[in-house]
Structure formats: structure tokens, C-alpha cells
């Protein structure tokens, strides 16, 4: 890459905590953010999956009343995460025209859309809120952040299901390499713990049915895994050219050294069992990083806890890393957070950055009986990473055959 890109700010709101520090501490402590849904609609509609990873801190407890009324929950989470990241970066002085946003969502304003349809059916068109369209549009979270920090260098939204926010971070590299942009706020948000998405994901047998023990339900690589667990929240990273960060004396967490996006053209939902597309994404991200596969010490895996997905990712990684795979420390953090869909890649990017910064791979919980078909070295308690320069990747894959991979180096 022609100029170095660094991470100078991180922010998140997740099922584990309302900010990065509380989330990270809970993750290292091996906590689960998954719990039973107490909402009346679970019973009302006989939703077959009765648990999820709900945001630990409610957005309405953080934002003002007008913000909660004018923003879909996905945009609310986005704003909370981006404000934390921006403050963490020291609220950089940057020309608005050289400040951009790359912020993703998988589904968009699903609460707004479906609430508005309910209103239309029950009360007629005169009661449909005038803010409905800007609230439901998938670029709503990105636009809300852009307004909040006065970003005039372009505000974009990648939508590639569960790969969305990793793709957004990869896209930020292109913006920063163009020479036209100094700072990008990148990440993703999701707020889809709504009866319809849960019923729909359950209908396709994508979700775990471990209703009796929600905290144990998200169990990547375990033989008893039976589907993913929906989560909600957001993650945001302030990405900046190294030159810009150094000029203002910013603290630097890690270097973003590569990002790549590929597609399978294999099946709308099933992963390519050969893992060719996912492997190409890993290889391309490493190539952009100027790195050999043997340099990778840590992977934050996509690992959603579905029976076929976890194996497909292993097969793909085996293609790239071969025998070196046994030397890599894996973390499957969805075991604690659940799957934030369009927000997943963003919080996992933050976990990867912190793993490098603090030299510790976070634990994977619920791995009681590892699938012999996935013989990876998985950290089940916080695992110290070695001294010296470190390279790590974070993978995200999405319905539609989307593969996105980003690579970070430790920064000294």
C-alpha cells in the first residue's frame, strides 16, 4: 500500500456492553451476552426462537428523545458507536471535505419499515410518519454519522449481509489510498431483533433452537452447534492515514494493512464447500498487506456456529494457510456476542485491533467438545500473543456469497 492506514479510535455498543471497554472486559471474562427475549411478541406470534443477544445498554438511555424519535434503532446504535470512536480518536481536526464515512448495515431500518406498515394497516396513510423513509433506508446509519461529524468527503453504505461491515472497512482503505481523504469513520450496525427477521431466519433453519439455555446456544466449532444467535449493536473505527494521525499526535491502536472482497457465485445462502472465494479474499488481503500467510498469528473467525458455515471457513483457511494453520490462534467471538449481521465485522475488527494492541486473543466460550472436522487451535481462555510484530485477520461472509477479509498489524 502506498501510505499506511492506522486505527486511532474505536467505539461499540454490543450485547456485552454499552462501550468498547465494557464489551472487551466482558469478552475476556468469557461472558455471554445472550439471553431470553421477554418481549410480548415472542409469545404473541409463537416465535420459535426465544432468545438473542440484545444490546446491553438501551439506545434510549444514551441518546436524546429527538434522536431516538428520528432515527431507526440501527442508526441509534451507529451514532452511539461512532461518537465513542470519534471521542476516542480525540475528535480529529480534519477538513470536512477530506472526512468520509463507510458505514454498513445488513438489513437496514427493519423496525421502522414494519412499524410503518402496521400503522398504515391500522390507522391509514395519514398516520405514517413523515420521517419513515429516511429512517428505514439502509444508508440511514451512515448518513446519521456523516451529519454528526460533518463528513463531506462521501458517505457510503455497503450492503452485503453479514459481510457488510468488514466490506465497509475494506472500502475505507480505497478512500484513504486515493489521497483525497484523511480520515474515515467505518463500521456497521444492526437492529433486527424483531419478530419478522427472527421468524424468517428461523424458517430457513439458520438459528440455534437452544431456547432452554440461551447462554450456551452460540457455540462455534462445538459438535453440538445448531445455528447462529442473532445479536444487535454497532461498531465503529476511526481510520486515518498514518501521516495525518502522526501530524496531530494521535494514539494509534494498530495498522490496517489489507482488505479484500470476493464473491462465490455458488449459492444464495450456502457457502462454497470448497471455500475458493473465501480463500481468495484472505489471500488478496494478505497480498495487499505485503505479507506471507506464515506471518498471521491470530484470526478472528466468522464462525457463526452453524453446522456447515464453520466447516466451510476452516476448509477455506486450510487452502490459504496449509500446515501453518496449526500455529494460528483462533477466536470465535460470536460465541459471546451472538451474530450482529451487518455490525458483526465491525465489532470483530475492534476485537482484532485490541487483540494486537493488548497482545491477547479473546476466548471462545461454549467450546466443550470441539468438532474433529475443525482441528483449529481455538483460544478458550484469554491467550497471550507473542512479542514482536503481529499480523491478524478478521473474516466475514454473507448470504449472497459475499466474502470480506481485513488484515491488521500491530503498531509500534
Amino acid at each position, binding site marked *: 500500500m502506498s501510505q499506511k492506514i492506522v486505527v486511532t479510535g474505536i467505539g461499540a455498543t454490543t450485547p456485552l456492553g454499552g462501550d468498547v471497554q465494557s464489551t472487551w472486559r466482558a469478552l475476556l471474562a468469557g461472558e455471554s451476552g445472550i439471553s431470553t427475549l421477554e418481549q410480548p411478541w415472542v409469545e404473541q406470534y409463537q416465535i420459535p426462537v426465544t432468545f438473542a443477544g440484545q444490546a446491553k445498554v438501551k439506545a434510549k438511555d444514551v441518546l436524546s428523545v*429527538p434522536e431516538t*424519535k428520528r432515527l431507526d434503532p440501527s442508526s441509534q446504535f451507529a451514532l452511539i458507536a461512532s461518537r465513542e470512536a470519534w471521542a476516542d480518536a480525540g475528535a480529529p481536526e480534519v477538513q470536512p471535505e477530506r472526512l468520509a464515512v463507510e458505514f454498513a448495515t445488513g438489513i437496514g431500518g427493519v423496525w421502522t419499515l414494519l412499524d410503518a406498515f402496521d400503522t398504515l394497516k391500522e390507522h391509514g396513510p395519514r*398516520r405514517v410518519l413523515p420521517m419513515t423513509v429516511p429512517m428505514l433506508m439502509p444508508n440511514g446509519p451512515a448518513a446519521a454519522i456523516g451529519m454528526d461529524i460533518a463528513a463531506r468527503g462521501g458517505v457510503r453504505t455497503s450492503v452485503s449481509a453479514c459481510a457488510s461491515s468488514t466490506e465497509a472497512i475494506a472500502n475505507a482503505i480505497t478512500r484513504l489510498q486515493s489521497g483525497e481523504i484523511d480520515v474515515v469513520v467505518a463500521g456497521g450496525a444492526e437492529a433486527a431483533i424483531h419478530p419478522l427477521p427472527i421468524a424468517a431466519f428461523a424458517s430457513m433453519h439458520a438459528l440455534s433452537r437452544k431456547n432452554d439455555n440461551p447462554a450456551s446456544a452460540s457455540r462455534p466449532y462445538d459438535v453440538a452447534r445448531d445455528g447462529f444467535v442473532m445479536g444487535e449493536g454497532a461498531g465503529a473505527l476511526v481510520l486515518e492515514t498514518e501521516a495525518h494521525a502522526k501530524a496531530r499526535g494521535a494514539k494509534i491502536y494498530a495498522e490496517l494493512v489489507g482488505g479484500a472482497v470476493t464473491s462465490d457465485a455458488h449459492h444464495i445462502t450456502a457457502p462454497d464447500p470448497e471455500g475458493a472465494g473465501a480463500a481468495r479474499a484472505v489471500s488478496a488481503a494478505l497480498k495487499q498487506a505485503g505479507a506471507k500467510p506464515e506471518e498471521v498469528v491470530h484470526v478472528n473467525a466468522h464462525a457463526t456456529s452453524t453446522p456447515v458455515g464453520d466447516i466451510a471457513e476452516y476448509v477455506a483457511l486450510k487452502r490459504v494457510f496449509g500446515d501453518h494453520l496449526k500455529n494460528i490462534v483462533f477466536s470465535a467471538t460470536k460465541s459471546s456476542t451472538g451474530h450482529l449481521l451487518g455490525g458483526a465485522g465491525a465489532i470483530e475488527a475492534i476485537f482484532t485491533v485490541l487483540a494486537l494492541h493488548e497482545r491477547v486473543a479473546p476466548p471462545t466460550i461454549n467450546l466443550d467438545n470441539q468438532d474433529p472436522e475443525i482441528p483449529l487451535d481455538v483460544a478458550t481462555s484469554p491467550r497471550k500473543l507473542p512479542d514482536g510484530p503481529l499480523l491478524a485477520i478478521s473474516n466475514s461472509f454473507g448470504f449472497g456469497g459475499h466474502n470480506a477479509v481485513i488484515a491488521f498489524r500491530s503498531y509500534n
Partner: protein
Amino acid sequence: MALSQAEVLSGLAEIVNEETGIDTSSVQLDKSFVDDLDIDSISMLTIVMNAEGKFGVTIPEDEVANLKTVGDAVSFITNAQ
């Protein structure tokens, strides 16, 4: 029982506050929604909709443009009850 003008003003100020964050004490009869309170058209439409629900009145779409000030809206709602 119909609400008094003061009660309508108080209720309207609450709606404006919830939608925009503007302090209820700033919502006074002589204030212009656009020039004084800086309320955009989409917020104005939302305020009108919420006022219809709260006060049980109908504010026709072609009437909204005539509601320049808080006083205009309070008078319309008070008379329409």
C-alpha cells in the same frame, strides 16, 4: 371538554420538544416555527400529525402552510376541537 388555549400551547410545546429537543419554554405564541424555532418541513409535518392525535383534531394538508407561528397552530387547534 375542549382544552383552553394555554392547555393547547402546553401540549403543543411538549410535542415540539419531543420531536426537536427545543425547550418547551421557547415554544411561545409569537414564535415562528421556521424563522424562530428552526423547525424543518419534515419535523413540522410530524408535529402536525402528533398534534392531530393528541388533540383529536384534523389539520388539512393545505392548512399546514398557514400555520406560520405557534399562535397560528394553537388558535387552529383550539377552534377545531
